[in-house]
């Protein structure tokens, strides 16, 4: 009986651990004036033994958020909406410029370098991950620190 309980407990913990996705290096690119679209980047890590699927993302600071992937195909730059992103067991996926990004559409209020964006990532089990991402400025000029 004792053994049985221990086994159940271990199984439960393993499944909770599987969904314990880590989010690191989250940031949002500051948009130039009048640009209604922003991009959010982060790294998702799945230390668990089961794959996890990112299903959706939202933020109270934007009218709409989508998961996108940019690519260059035959010299053409494109963005494609992703229905989901699979995070393999023990793996990580990097959202970065020119690749996966959170497409943050129509900010409720203009966001500038130093502001914070609250994001909610929705996983396949219905779990939600809360992430706070700083807005960073990268306009390329030398005179202003990023």
């Amino acid at each position, binding site marked *: 009986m004792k053994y049985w309980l221990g086994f159940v407990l271990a199984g439960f913990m393993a499944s909770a651990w599987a969904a314990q996705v880590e989010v690191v290096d989250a940031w949002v*690119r500051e*948009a*130039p*004036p*009048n*640009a*209604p*679209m*922003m*991009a959010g980047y982060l790294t998702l890590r799945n230390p668990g033994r089961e794959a996890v699927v990112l299903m959706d993302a939202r933020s109270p600071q934007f009218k709409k958020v*989508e998961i*996108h992937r*940019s690519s*260059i195909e035959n*010299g*053409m*730059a*494109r*963005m*494609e*909406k992703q229905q989901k992103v699979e995070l393999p067991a023990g793996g990580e996926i990097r959202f970065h*410029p*020119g690749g996966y*990004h959170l*497409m*943050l*559409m129509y900010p409720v209020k203009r966001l500038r370098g130093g502001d914070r964006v609250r994001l909610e990532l929705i996983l396949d089990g219905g779990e939600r991950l809360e992430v706070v991402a700083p807005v960073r400025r*990268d*306009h*390329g*000029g*030398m*005179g202003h620190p990023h």
Partner: protein
Amino acid sequence: MKKKATWLTVVLVVLGVGLVLWNSRFSIPDLQMPGLQWFDPAPRLPASGLEDTEGRPFRWDWPQGWTIAFFGYTHCPDFCPDTLAVLARVESRLQNAPPHRLVFVSVDPYRDTPEIIRGYLEYFDAGFIGVVGPPEALQAVTTEAGAFYDYEDPDSGEVFRVPDAKALEKGYLVNHFGALVLVDPDGVMRGHLYPPLDEERVSRLILALQ
């Protein structure tokens, strides 16, 4: 023989060349790197139809030096600002670069007004020239430059050349040429630099445009 000629015609039409090609008096810069293509002979870009953000007619020929053009749109949150930041950084760091100018051509004239483009570019570098114009003029230029673009519904994947009222309300994605287009002082389109467009590659390119 006949078959071969037909095939060649098809290739030329697909490439968007086979129109009028010029032997420019400017020689190809002495630089080779992966993803850098030079053309000789090459098409001359149409001189009229587009305007800069001050409302002046834009001309591709510029006697002072070469033109580096990027075709993008301001609703682009990822690839375009990333590339413009690289170009701005290169501009602020490069020393002893030959005279050149950087031009951003909007391939989204349905949403990008001169004012929007001006504000967008100034954020990166006030020296960037913003160019926009009626769709017909844009199509003529992009065809000659090999800088293709079209629009896409993010949900259905439907591709279109002209956004209708519904698409304008809902929003749409723009698929666009991702390479830099290199134009010689006579306005002849001489090269493409394909991504990755990092600081090192872009700097080497600009330094070679003598």
